[in-house]
């Protein structure tokens, strides 16, 4: 009975680790143009212009913006795309 409980707890812990979402964060960079960053957000994430501008301004004023959260593989693919556009982007595991 107690063995089952231990296994269940381990599985739950493992599942929780796997389920933790990953954040895609874009960092400020004085070189990239605001219009260019906005265009990239629209292209990569399909944001409407207003939302793309909001994230661009957050990057500009606060130094970073969390632009997407979700499963790790997709987050990695987004970061790769952003690097392809020469934006500074990182993956961060969300805190529970």
């Amino acid at each position, binding site marked *: 009975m107690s063995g089952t409980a231990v296994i269940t707890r381990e599985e739950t812990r493992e599942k929780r680790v796997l389920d933790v979402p990953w954040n895609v964060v874009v960092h400020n960079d*004085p*070189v990239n143009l605001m219009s*260019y960053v906005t*265009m990239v957000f629209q292209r990569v994430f399909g944001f409407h212009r207003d939302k793309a501008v909001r994230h661009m301004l957050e990057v500009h004023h606060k130094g970073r913006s969390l632009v997407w959260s979700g499963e790790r593989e997709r987050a990695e693919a987004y970061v*790769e795309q952003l*690097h392809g*556009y*020469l934006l*500074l982007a990182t*993956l961060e595991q969300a805190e529970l």
Partner: protein
Amino acid sequence: MRLTRQSPDVLQLQDVPPFFAVLLADLPRIAALHEEARERLYPDPLSPDGDDLLSDWREHVVPELERLFASSREIAARDIAAMDVGAESASLSIPDKNIDAWLNALNQARLIIAGRNSFREEDLDAREEPDLSTARGLDLLRLHFYAHLQEVLVGVAG
């Protein structure tokens, strides 16, 4: 200097003054210095305490990015090689299908220039005209010129 439509799918940058034609012609050389700005052009996707993703990233993703950036540089260089340079001005044709490559090549060059001069935000926002008697001043002008061209192309592509 003005941007017009040469045909439905080709842009033309016309009346480029000779000085700026030289800066344009210099784009492939600058962008090819990407090893100088390797850390910025191929940044790690995780903070230093990241996991095994880093080694996979460097092994698989970075070579893909290198190919993408090299291809962009080559496309822009081909268009530049075909630039029509006259005594008074030059004109450059950029097919619409090459705009993304141009945006990428211009960005590479701008990041390299900013990196090698350690330009900060205040340098880029400065109102004074760059001192063209210095290499740093010339690079600042070059960076602004490429930014202007990039801005125009974003307007078309966006």
